[in-house]
C-alpha cells in the first residue's frame, strides 16, 4: 500500500560514513554549519544562556529588541534569546533520542525480517504496514491522550510513530544485500544469522540508513513542534520551540520577535538537515542523473 512516499537513498555506499569536508558542496556546508550550530547550542545550552530561561525581567512583557534582551522578552517578560537557546535542548534532544530509538528498532527488525524471511517477515511487515495507515499526528495524539506527555513518554511516542517507516527502508535495503553472492558465501561458510546481519548486511546499508535517519529526524522535529504547539507536547515550565510559538502567539499581531524567533529556529534546523541530506557527497551524482 502506498501510504507514504519514502525516498530510498541510492545504494552507493560512501567509503566513509561522514565524508571529508572538502567534498561537500557549498549548500551542503551551509546546512552542516547550521546543524552543528544548533547541536552545539543544544549541548552547551545551560552554560551559555545570557539570562536565566525562567527569569522575569524588569523590561515588561513583549519588550522590543534591546541590548539587554537581544530578541526582546516573552509574554511573561522572560528573555526570548535564552528561552530559544534553552528550547533547543528539548527540541533537538527529544527529536534526536526518538529518531535514534526509531531507527535502531526499525533497523534491527528490518534486518531480522530480511535475513530470516518466512512468516516472521510477513507478519511483521503486515503489522507495521497497518500502523503506517494511521496518520502520524493522529497516532501521536491518541498515544498522548492515553498516556500523557512527559518527556520520556514523548520520546517513546515519536519513536513508535516513526519505527514502521525506518523498518520499511531498512528491510528493503537489507533484502537487496541479503541476495548478494558474498552473503551466500558467508552462509556457506557456516556463519550464524547474527554475524550475517551485523557484519555482512549492516555495514553495506549503513550509508543510506544514515541519510534516512536525517529525514526521520526532520519528521520528528516537525511532529514534536506540532504537538507542543497544540499544548500536548513538552509541558511548562520547560518549553521547546513549538511551545514557545504557542506561548507567544499573542505577539503575532504586532509582529514581535517573541513568536518569530522560535518559529525561525525550527525552520532553520529542518531546512539545514534537508540541505545536508540533499547535498551529501556521493549523492550529488545521483541527483544530477535524476534531473
Amino acid at each position, binding site marked *: *500500500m*502506498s*501510504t507514504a*512516499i519514502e525516498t530510498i537513498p541510492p545504494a552507493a555506499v560512501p567509503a566513509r560514513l561522514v565524508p571529508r569536508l572538502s567534498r561537500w558542496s557549498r549548500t551542503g556546508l551551509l546546512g552542516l554549519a547550521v546543524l552543528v550550530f544548533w547541536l552545539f547550542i543544544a549541548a552547551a545550552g545551560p552554560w551559555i544562556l545570557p539570562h536565566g530561561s525562567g527569569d522575569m525581567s524588569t523590561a515588561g512583557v513583549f519588550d522590543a529588541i534591546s541590548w539587554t534582551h537581544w530578541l526582546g522578552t516573552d509574554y511573561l517578560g522572560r528573555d526570548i534569546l535564552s528561552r530559544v537557546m534553552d528550547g533547543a535542548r528539548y527540541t533537538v534532544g527529544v527529536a534526536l533520542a526518538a529518531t535514534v530509538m526509531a531507527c535502531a528498532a526499525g533497523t534491527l527488525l528490518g534486518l531480522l525480517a530480511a535475513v530470516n524471511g518466512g512468516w516472521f517477515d510477513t507478519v511483521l511487515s503486515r503489522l507495521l504496514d*497497518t*500502523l503506517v*495507515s*494511521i*496518520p*502520524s*499526528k*493522529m497516532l501521536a*495524539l*491518541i*498515544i*498522548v*491522550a*492515553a*498516556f500523557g506527555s512527559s518527556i520520556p513518554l514523548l520520546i517513546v511516542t515519536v519513536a513508535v510513530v516513526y519505527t514502521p517507516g525506518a523498518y520499511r527502508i531498512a528491510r528493503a535495503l537489507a533484502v537487496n544485500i541479503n541476495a548478494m553472492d558474498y552473503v551466500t558465501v558467508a552462509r556457506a561458510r557456516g556463519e550464524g544469522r547474527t554475524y550475517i546481519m551485523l557484519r555482512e548486511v549492516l555495514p553495506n546499508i549503513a550509508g543510506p540508513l544514515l541519510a534516512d535517519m536525517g529525514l526521520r529526524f*526532520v519528521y520528528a522535529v*516537525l511532529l514534536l*513542534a*506540532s504537538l507542543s*504547539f*497544540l*499544548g*500536548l507536547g513538552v509541558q511548562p515550565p520547560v518549553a521547546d520551540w*513549538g511551545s514557545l*510559538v504557542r506561548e507567544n*502567539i499573542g505577539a*503575532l*499581531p*504586532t*509582529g514581535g520577535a517573541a*513568536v*518569530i524567533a522560535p*518559529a525561525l529556529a*525550527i*525552520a532553520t534546523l*529542518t*531546512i539545514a538537515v*534537508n540541505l545536508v541530506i540533499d547535498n551529501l557527497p556521493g549523492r550529488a551524482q545521483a541527483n544530477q542523473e535524476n*534531473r
Partner: protein
Amino acid sequence: MNLQILRLIAGRLAVGVVSLLIVSAIVFAITGLLPGDAAQEQLGQEATPEALAALRQQMGLTQSGPERYWQWLNGLLRGNPGQSIVSSAPVADLIGSRLPNSLMLAGVTALVSVPLALLLGILSAVWRGSWFDRAASMGAVAVVSVPEFLVATLAVLVFAVHLRWLPALSYSVDISSPGQMLRSFAMPVMSLSCVIIAQMMRMTRAAVIDQLRAPYIEMVKLKGASPARIVLAHALPNAIGPIANAVALSLSYLLGGVIIIETIFNYPGIAKLMVDGVSQRDMPLVQACAMIFCAAYLILVTLADLCGIVANPRLRHQ
C-alpha cells in the same frame, strides 16, 4: 473494464476494509485497554471502593477487553460512539455539530488547491530547470520542511498584520453575510492550501517529468510536434493516473494540516474538538474522532491506489 481490473479493485477495497478494522483495534487498544482503569482516573485516588465498583459497572469495565472492543465497534457502526466523559453529551451530537464545518474547510481548500497545484506542477515539469521551476521547487521544499503552524503564522503575519486584508486569529461564529463568511474563511483556507499545494505540486511535477522522459515523447518530438501538443496530447493523458494518485495522496495531508490550522485559527471543527478531547483526556470523544480521521485517511489512500489501477493502460486494454 474487464474482469481482471474488477478483481484488482475488489481486492484493494477488501484490503482497505481489513486495514480499517485493524486500525480500529489498535486505536481501541491504545486508548481503551492500555491506560489502565478509566473509572479510577475519573474519580481520583480518594474514591471509595463502592463508588469505583459502581462506576466500573456503569462504564462496562468489568467485561473483558475483546468484549469491550466489540461493544465499542458495534456502537461506532450504529452511529453511537458513547458519551463524552467531560460534558456527558453524546459523542455523536458533539461530532455532528462540528463535522460540517471541517468538511467545508477541507472541501473549499481542495477546490482552491487542486487546480492551482496541478497547474504549477505541470508548468514546472514542462519548464524544468528554468528559473520558474527552481523558484517553485524551492518554495515547495521550504513549505514542506517547516511545520504547518509556521506557514499559518507567516500567512497571518503577511495578510492580516502587514497588509491588513483579513482578520487575524478570530473566527466569528455569527456569520451574517457571505462576504463575512469569506473573510473569516480565507486565512484558514489559504494556510492549509499552501501546505497541500506544496505537496501536490512536487508529486505532479515528478509524475509529468516521468512521462516526458519516456521514449515515446522523444518520438513525438522527432516527428516535429509543437511543445504544447507534446504536453497536452501525449504526456498528460498518460500522466493522469500518477497525477490522480498524487492528488489523492496529497489530500491525505489535509488531515494532518487541519489539526493545526483549526487550532491556530480557533475554527470550530472536528480536529479542534479532538485536540480539546486529548487535553481533557476524554477517551470516547478521542476514539470517535480518531476513527473518523483514520477512515478518511484510508479512503483517500485507497482511492489513490484505485486511480493507479484504473489508469494503468496495460490493464485497461487486453
